[in-house]
């Protein structure tokens, strides 16, 4: 999952959108549910406690009333004397009994037993025949207690008793009060909600009464076991809340059994509805988050892919986009950038190719220079030994020019270039005699300027051939000047001039290849290739009066390296 999220920011956007959309929803739903449940539970608890208050109240009140009545009866002289006499049919006692117990006879039955356990008087319709056991149950308890004792009556309600004693403590009989189930039911009626159940327990949590007899016994058994085992009180089966209330002094306990509103079935359906809603939201969210993250990441992905293509060398890739936002602008910038890069690359390759071609041609023009050089050396010595100094001079000068032309390095200083020109003129002077003069007018400050090797020589040759041929007063001038930061080298002559069509070609900005004048053309190409199209050759000519050919070069000076610095 984490690796998946890291792989692409699309996935991160996706997850973030999901979280932001779903979590608040989910939390909100759960919290609402919980608040609802808590509120409802609080209400139920309050209701149960109110009911318990009411139930315990009426029961306590009744038992206290019965306690008081039994006290009144047991201490009355009438009851005592009647029992002592042993009669069982005293009208007066019956009147007193009915009168005293009038308030509670709906709920309870009052009996008077004699000391041997036989019933003498009762508020019920018939006298029970069977004697009460004296050493067991309620009579035993009453005999061992000064006051009123209360016990559960075999799960059929409550039974209470008080011993009737003489003034010196001898037992005369027992006053027994029985609260049958019906009696308790009539006390409780209307004091608790019909969905609830009431359980009355004795001090050891044995059932005395339960309002729902069908499950009462099992439920009380389960509750007692749970209490003794320290478990929460959940009853036997079904989902109920139990509320426990102790009342009175006898340790009896009332329990209210209340069905749960949020039973596990209700909770299950609540949770499943929430889960289904959540699932729908999840699906919706998934869809939206997916579309949105795709929308955001698609152009970036494309750009990423295109970039990788470019890295591999495919410069022809172009992004297609119809978008006008940041991604659209980014895509068109990318397209422009690759296009321009491609053009640059093409022109650079072309230039390199042309330079190579030109150099190749120049090399071809330099026919076996070493052989020529050696020959010239031989000629020089022949000239010296045979006493023909002109031959020696010719050979020496030619050899110098030849050496310069085959030497390494494409650039020489103007001074070196002019030295070669002087040699060349020396040669041509011997050839042409005194038919021309040459003047070099170059300021010292230009001497150190760097120029391509042998760029002036073709110009001078041209001037001699076209300017001096057929005349005796040929004049050639070589000048240098600076104009707009560029070095202008001019070779002018007073010869017959350059034919119109050649002049045109020389001055054309493209520098078309001329059929003759290969030397001038080459000079032009070399300058242009080295320095760019704003540099090159230009010429002007007046027919019969002379011509002027000009080289335009950038001013570059030899860089002084350490070695030269040391020797100069």
């Amino acid at each position: 999952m984490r690796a998946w999220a890291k792989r692409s920011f699309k996935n991160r956007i996706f997850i973030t959108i999901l979280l932001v959309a779903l979590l608040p929803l989910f939390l909100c739903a759960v919290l609402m549910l919980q608040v609802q449940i808590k509120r409802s539970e609080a209400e139920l608890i309050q209701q149960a406690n109110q009911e318990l208050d009411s139930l315990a109240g009426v029961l306590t009140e009744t038992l206290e009333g019965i306690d008081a009545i039994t006290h009144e009866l047991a201490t009355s002289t009438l009851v005592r004397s009647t029992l002592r006499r042993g009669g069982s049919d005293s009208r007066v006692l019956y009147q007193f009994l009915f009168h005293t117990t009038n308030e509670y006879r709906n709920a309870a039955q009052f009996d008077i037993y004699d000391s041997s356990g036989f019933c003498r008087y009762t508020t019920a319709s018939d006298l029970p025949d069977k004697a009460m056991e004296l050493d067991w149950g309620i009579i035993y308890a009453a005999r061992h207690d000064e006051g009123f004792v209360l016990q559960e009556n075999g799960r059929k309600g409550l039974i209470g008793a008080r011993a009737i004693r003489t003034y010196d403590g001898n037992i005369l009989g027992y006053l027994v009060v029985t609260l049958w189930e019906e009696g308790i039911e009539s006390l409780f009626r209307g004091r608790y909600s019909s969905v609830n159940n009431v359980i009355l327990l004795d001090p050891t949590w044995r059932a005395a009464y339960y309002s729902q007899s069908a499950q009462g016994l099992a439920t009380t058994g389960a509750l007692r076991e749970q209490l003794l085992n320290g478990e929460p009180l959940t009853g036997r089966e079904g989902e109920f809340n139990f509320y426990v209330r102790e009342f009175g002094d006898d340790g009896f306990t009332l329990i209210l059994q209340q069905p749960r509103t949020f039973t596990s079935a209700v909770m299950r359906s609540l949770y499943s509805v929430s889960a289904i809603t959540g699932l729908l939201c999840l699906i919706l969210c998934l869809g939206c988050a997916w579309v949105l993250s795709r929308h955001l990441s698609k152009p970036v992905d494309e750009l990423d892919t295109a970039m990788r293509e470019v890295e591999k060398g495919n410069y022809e890739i172009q992004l297609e986009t119809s978008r006008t936002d940041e991604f659209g602008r980014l895509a068109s910038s990318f397209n422009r950038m690759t296009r321009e890069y491609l053009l640059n690359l093409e022109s650079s390759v072309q230039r390199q190719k042309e330079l190579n071609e030109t150099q190749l041609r120049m090399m071809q023009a330099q026919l076996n220079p070493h052989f020529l050089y050696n020959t010239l050396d031989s000629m020089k010595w022949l000239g010296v030994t045979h006493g023909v100094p002109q031959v020696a001079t010719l050979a020496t000068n030619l050899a110098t020019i030849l050496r310069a032309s085959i030497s390494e390095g494409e650039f020489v200083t103007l001074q070196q270039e002019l030295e070669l020109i002087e040699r060349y003129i020396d040669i041509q002077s011997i050839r042409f005699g005194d038919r021309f003069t040459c003047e070099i007018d170059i300021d010292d400050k230009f001497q150190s300027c760097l120029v391509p090797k042998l760029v002036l020589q073709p110009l001078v040759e041209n001037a001699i051939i076209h300017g001096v041929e057929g005349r005796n007063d040929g004049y050639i001038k070589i000048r240098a000047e600076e104009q707009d930061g560029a070095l202008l080298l001019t070779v002018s002559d007073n010869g017959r001039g350059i034919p119109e069509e050649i002049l045109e070609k020389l001055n054309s900005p493209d520098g078309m290849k001329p059929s003759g004048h290969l030397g001038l053309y080459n000079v032009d190409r070399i300058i242009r290739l080295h320095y760019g199209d704003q540099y090159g050759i230009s010429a002007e000519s007046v027919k019969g009066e002379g011509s002027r050919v000009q080289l335009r070069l950038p001013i570059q000076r030899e860089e002084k390296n350490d070695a030269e610095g040391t020797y100069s």
Partner: protein
Amino acid sequence: MNHILQGDIPMRLILVLLLSLALVLSGCGGQSPSEFSRFAPEESQRLIIYTSHKKEIYEPIIREFEQRTGIWVEIVTGGTTELLQKIASGDTRCDLLFGGGIDSLSAYSDLFTVYESPELENVPDSMRGNGEWTPFSSLPIVLIYNPKLVKFNPPEGWSSLLDPEWKGKIAFANPTVSGSSYTALVTMIKALEREPMECIAEFYKNLDGKVIASSSEVIHAVAQGEYFIGVTLEVSAIEGIKEGYDIAIVYPEEGTSIVPDGAAIVKNCRHEESARRFLDFILSTDVQSRLYDAFSRRPVRNGIYIPAASGLKSIEYDIEWAGSHHADILRFWAELGRGASK
């Protein structure tokens, strides 16, 4: 480091949110147990009783005990042997075992602690034991017969069981299952003063291969006329008569063993004081005087009036002998069973 954090944050966030959610969800439990624990009794007011008695016997006694003492009794029911084995296998819940013949209790006397109840001075010496168990009621073994089928010459005693006249007509529960049947077997040997194995073999032969699976079926089998006479506990017989079964009781003329059942406190139990109070209670006059009327049992306490049983003669039952020969006799019985089926 930085990118690890970036990767971690959403995960941590999710974790924190899920945890808080779990907390919210767990808040919806019911009432806490502590809310009710104040109603629960103190340890000193508790007692856990394992009993093999029937509900009609244990419930009124325990209810009365609870009402008199305020002690909360928890009851676990089961067969005597089952409960004994449960305690023997390390069940520490039980405080007191209520029920079971004292021969069974004696066999497991290691499990029980000695308690000499002050009420024991009202109990005859023969019923007292040595304190590991406390007697509850005495249970003579008797013969029963179906008065419709047997009119003129009812069985008179143990010797009748060997009489060929009754061959195949005696209802006798399997002593390997029923404790009282084993007691009856030992009593017969003692009463007739016979060599044990010989006597058993003869008796088995007189059963004609018919042995009843459990002691509770003896009454029914005789009353229904499947068998003419039977061997059972007096209490079962009286209860059977009360339930309307047409049977008659014969107290063997040679005398019969009166083996009490009892109760015993488990060693190192948690509520020993409550258990002692319960033993005192079951020996009290109030309980003992109810035994015969309410539960058809003979009290072990002296001075309790019960209707005289004509002809009930007690002979001494040697618990030690019965215990030491238990395995031998039952093995012999099983062999007889296998031999008969061949």
